[in-house]
């Protein structure tokens, strides 16, 4: 013992004062340095705040019609103009932020939950479970996703909630596959072997080692998917299969104002820009998260 202690005093004296850098802290530091990602995060937060505070900051309500004042060009009283009901476009976009973000977020959470469940089952248990689930994913991916969403909405009936469900379903295989492959690769990692070697139960292994180490790609993919989900919701809204009027969902706003593209382009341009900016925000943020959390992951 004495011999051991004697030979082992190998650390530099300064090291005691090193701060503890957890992987999350490390990731945050990297993220913070990425200007584009930060810009994305700020955009996203901006829209989130817009969504949360919409009842208070929007100059008008969702459905404050003014038929005497329709299709007004942007002016000081209506910064982004009015639509064909004389409603303030800006207010509707602000209210719409809540809907779009909510749909994006909830549907992605739904996809993640379902995808995780199936992906873990497939990746961890392998064999026939894997075969069945993987084939199911193959089948779902072979469907053109928007067509699948349209069909699901056709079955359930057009509404925002059903659009959300449809979007959640069509994105399940993306997450399922991701998690499955992550589980498979994490399973090969030496620290998993090490954890097994200390006599760990499978369930604990899954919860304490495999899942936490699969989480960062899920976060990254999840962030990016919120963007996609918002576009998908807008597309369904655009086709009249998503949010129902007078809900100011952005895609549905586009559908409603499509006819005015030449006479009142602002009714068309601004909701489209809102979608694009929000999605861009999520994409930038997702990219930044990827670089920070999981530099090895591919685009």
């Amino acid at each position, binding site marked *: 013992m004495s011999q051991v202690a004697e030979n082992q005093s190998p650390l530099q004296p300064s090291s005691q004062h090193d701060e503890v850098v957890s992987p999350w802290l490390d990731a945050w530091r990297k993220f913070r340095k990425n200007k584009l990602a930060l810009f994305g995060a700020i955009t996203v937060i901006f829209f989130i705040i817009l969504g949360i505070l919409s009842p208070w900051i929007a100059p008008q309500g969702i459905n404050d019609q003014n038929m005497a004042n329709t299709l007004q060009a942007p002016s000081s009283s209506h910064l982004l103009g009015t639509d064909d009901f004389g409603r303030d476009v800006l207010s509707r976009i602000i209210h719409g932020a809540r809907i779009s973000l909510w749909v994006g977020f909830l549907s992605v959470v739904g996809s993640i939950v379902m995808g995780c469940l199936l992906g873990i089952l497939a990746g961890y248990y392998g064999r026939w479970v894997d075969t069945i689930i993987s084939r199911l994913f193959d089948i779902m991916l072979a469907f053109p*996703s928007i067509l699948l969403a349209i069909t699901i909405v056709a079955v359930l009936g057009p509404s925002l909630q059903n659009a959300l469900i449809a979007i959640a379903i069509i994105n399940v295989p993306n997450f399922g596959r991701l998690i499955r492959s992550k589980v498979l690769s994490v399973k090969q990692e030496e620290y998993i072997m090490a954890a097994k070697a200390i006599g760990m139960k499978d369930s604990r292994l899954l919860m304490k080692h495999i899942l936490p180490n699969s989480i960062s790609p899920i976060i990254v993919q999840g962030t990016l998917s919120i963007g996609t989900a918002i576009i998908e919701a807008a597309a369904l809204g655009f086709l009249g299969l998503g949010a129902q009027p007078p809900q100011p969902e952005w895609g549905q706003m*586009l559908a409603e104002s499509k006819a005015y593209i030449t006479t009142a382009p602002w009714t068309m341009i601004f909701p489209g820009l809102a979608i*694009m900016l929000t999605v861009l925000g999520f994409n930038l943020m997702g990219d930044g998260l990827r670089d920070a959390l999981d530099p090895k992951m591919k685009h």
Partner: protein
Amino acid sequence: MLTYTLRRLLMLIPVLLGMALIVFFIIHAIPGDPAQIILGQQATEENVEALNEQLGLNEPLYVQFFSYLGNILTGDLGESFQTNNAISEEVWPFLAATIELSFVAMLIAIVIGVNAGIISAWFQNSWFDYSAMLLALIGVSIPIFWLGLMEQWAFSVELNWLPSSGRENVRDPVEPITHLFLIDTLIQGRLDQFVDVVRHLILPSVALATIPMAIIARITRSSMLEVMKSDYIRTARAKGMRMFGVVYKHSLKNAVIPVLTIIGLQTGLLLGGAILTETIFSWPGIGRYIYGAIDARDYPVIQSGVLIVATMFIFINLIVDLLYAAVDPRIKYH
């Protein structure tokens, strides 16, 4: 290689069967009576009933499924409820329209996307890199239906440069041979029509190309960067090779593999995902064909249409997988 191909083909069977099953049951779960929809709002009850009988929709679902499956296996895709035409004969013009559009869109996406990706990787952190990648990010963030409308507005309505919809000049329609108009017009030596077809293609194909272009550019860049860091690139440089050779000979071929995957996936997505673009640009393609059929509850058309698209998707990806083997000798299929 052959065995691998065969094995992959064999693996398709359960996928296609599963697909047929799922399509069938989802579609039959859609509420609404096809006969009613075919006959319209003003139809009488008896007429509806009679049509249901005639279409075989009174049979139990599983009977319908197996007869449908049996028909498909014998190559019979069924008849459209709406037009009573054999789908196998009816579908090709639509499919051809989509194939032509997707092909051109993919061509644009690949040519611009790959080159932008290479240049970005080559001049990493240059202004070109930054702006190209920001554009690519915007590209994946744009709702394409919105982009399509904006294009129409700008180039067709306001500037009147390009036609806003359709595939050809209606006044001087193309005589279809293959239904791929670019080819048909060339076969017939109608250069004026060819130009016209190209002009019709520009707006929708650019809208459709946006997302894959952006994705391809991003993947090409990151994959190039990764390859350029690899040991064998260092070896190539240690041999005294110049950067251009290194990039175009050694890096590109290696970087192309992930790009190939994406191209495969995206092409598949384009085929089926063109619904929105096709709607906006009145492109008589398969997406609209199926979408219209959903509206009309034209079961055989939806089933067969979706199956055709999915099969194409699967085959394109199979081809991509086989292309890997051509590019990458490491993938030796036993």
